[in-house]
């Protein structure tokens, strides 16, 4: 009955529902990124360097033939030396579903090469410049629904691949910091005394450092020669190294009051051992706080990972994350000429807002007094 009440209260939260749907879509995208993205993480196509989003057409030469694209012809503007594209309307390349593309491992296990959509092996013949002596080349026709980046990689695909790192770093980082924070906080609050004072002073000192320099300092420790997966876990650990302290402080406060609760005294006077009391009474009774604080902390973690990667100390190419993707949109001129490079930022925003909405909804449902503060990551 109680559970129903919480569920009802959660579902009543409109923004919370919106957030939940957004998150479901984002995580679905992250899980099936290889399948949904038409290109692999490392695939590039020189025809797509800084290419504007490909336009989807329906009518070719006055006839409706379903969704298709035109290939783009690249040329350099003689005045600005910028790459310019114009559509070549002679051939229509139909958009196909469940096409073969670059191979990947589904869930890291099964070898598959089917992608949700793409142009298949549509080829474009590029005639060599007259007099250069080169032969005409055939090239795959790029499909960049959200444009291409500097190296001709598909932004849409990269955002999907990057979401894996960004979204999971948020989750794992939060989980790690909540677990550490809950354990340290419960021990500190339950035992009190000198141990508590030491832990609290330690936390206060660490927390008094400005956050970004501390991240950077810690990120520098990670050897850049590490393979990208190690690097990824390194970043997550750096993030949670700071994140756990907020949880620990609040859990400690709750443990301080819980240890005076009569049911804890009862357990104590029955001879139950301290760690058993912490496990059986303290942790379950801070659980709803932990759920709320977890959801509210994921955004901080996502932003943290983005910040570190943006500053070049996090995830390295060719692996990617939203923060790293944004790095390409650093200069005004890039943003002006290729605004689609900003799209990863939009995703960061959506993810952060969604988590906040869901967290607020959780808070309303589980902690009606609003005592939970956001955890600083």
């Amino acid at each position, binding site marked *: *009955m109680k559970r129903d009440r919480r569920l009802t209260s959660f579902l009543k939260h409109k923004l919370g529902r919106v957030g939940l749907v957004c998150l479901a879509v984002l995580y679905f995208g992250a899980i099936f990124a290889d399948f949904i993205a038409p290109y692999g993480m490392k695939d590039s196509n020189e025809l797509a360097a800084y290419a504007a989003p490909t336009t989807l057409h329906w009518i070719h030469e006055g006839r409706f033939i379903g969704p298709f694209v035109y290939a783009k012809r690249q040329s350099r503007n003689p005045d600005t030396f910028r790459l310019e594209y114009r559509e070549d309307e002679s051939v229509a390349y139909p958009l196909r579903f469940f096409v073969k593309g670059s191979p990947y491992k589904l869930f890291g296990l099964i070898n598959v090469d089917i992608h949700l959509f793409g142009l298949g092996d549509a080829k474009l013949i590029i005639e060599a410049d007259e007099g250069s002596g080169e032969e005409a080349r055939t090239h795959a026709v790029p499909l960049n629904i959200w444009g291409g980046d500097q190296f001709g990689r598909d932004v849409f695909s990269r955002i999907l691949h990057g979401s894996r790192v960004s979204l999971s770093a948020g989750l794992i980082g939060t989980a790690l910091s909540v677990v550490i924070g809950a354990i340290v906080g419960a021990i500190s609050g339950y035992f009190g005394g000198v141990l508590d004072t030491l832990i609290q002073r330690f936390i206060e000192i660490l927390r008094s450092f400005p956050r970004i320099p501390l991240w950077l300092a810690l990120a520098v420790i990670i050897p850049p020669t590490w393979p990208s997966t190690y690097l990824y876990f390194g970043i997550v650990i750096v993030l949670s190294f700071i994140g756990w302290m907020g949880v620990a402080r609040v859990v400690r406060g709750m443990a301080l009051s819980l240890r005076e609760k009569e049911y804890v005294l009862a357990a104590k006077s029955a001879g139950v051992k301290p760690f058993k009391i912490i496990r059986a009474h303290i942790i379950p009774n801070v659980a709803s706080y932990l759920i709320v604080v977890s959801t509210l902390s994921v955004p901080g973690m996502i932003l943290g990972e983005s910040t570190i990667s943006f500053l070049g100390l996090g995830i390295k190419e060719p692996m990617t994350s939203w923060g790293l993707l944004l790095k390409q949109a650093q200069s005004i001129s890039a943003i002006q000429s290729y605004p689609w490079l900003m799209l990863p930022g939009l995703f960061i925003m959506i993810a952060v807002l969604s988590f906040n909405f869901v967290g607020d909804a959780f808070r309303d449902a589980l902690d009606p007094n609003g005592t939970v503060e956001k955890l600083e990551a």
Partner: protein
Amino acid sequence: MATLLELKDSRTHFCTFDGIVKASDGVSFHIDEGEVLALVGESGSGKSVTARSIMGLYSGSKIRQSGSIVFKGEDLSKANPQRRRELRGRDMGMIFQEPMSAFDPLSSISEQMVEARLTHFKESREEARALAIESLRQVGIPEPEKRIDDYPHRLSGGMLQRVLISIAIMNKPKLLIADEPTTALDVTIQAQVLRLLNGLRKEMGASLLFITHDLGVVAEIADRVHVMYAGKIVEKASVRALFSSALHPYSKGLLDARVTGERKGKPLPAIPGSVPRPSEIAEDCCRFAPRCPHAGPRCLREEPPLAAAPAAGGPRNDEGRELACWLYNGGTE
């Protein structure tokens, strides 16, 4: 004596996740001028809800109220919120159970008292403060000139309860509502507070609606007693009649449940079962029937109306005695 307050079929229902909770469900009674009426009942009997609905403390879409509350000839259930606010604190004063939580911990007693006065009367702060000091003196606060600038946490529970009383009487209300005013206090302080309340009430000629679960306190202060159970009044009697011979099985049970030294060595008479939760109250039957030793088939079939006690059986000389029990109204068969 003139009637000061009259409730007719007053109901307060709350819409909650568990459905509609009928906290008070058809309560009718009246208080005469200068009289002390006690509402007695256990948790969930609806006694506090009734008191708060008289004060007009309930509003909002989750609360449904019906019935009439006539105060000095004016039907409050039809009055607008502005009018309710005017009456509250000026013509009706309320004293709460937990003195600590009835105060704002961040402002001094003087600020809170002056505020309470100036809400209703146009006068200077100095005048209001002087009156507040006088009022504190009346309730027996030592050195009220100094104490008035204290913050609530500086005073003990008993002292705070006195301050709360002094705020309630400051505007000389005609009706004082005291909701379990001594429950949170120690016995020696309880005696002091009861004596104080009784003295002040007499002095001001105000009526007192006293809400409690403690029959011992009722015996000390009330003129008439209404016993409530699960949102309804089950017995109305004068305090003497109730203590000399309670008629309703629930009132009897409450009186019998008194722990005394004389009972030592013998088991205490107890009412079986437990007080029903507001969301679990059975309807269309006597609400006490599941715990009643005399319950018959009729009690489970029909809800007994509150009716004048019959002439036969029980001591007479008690006007206005009413009972909601089939035992005294045609039998339980």
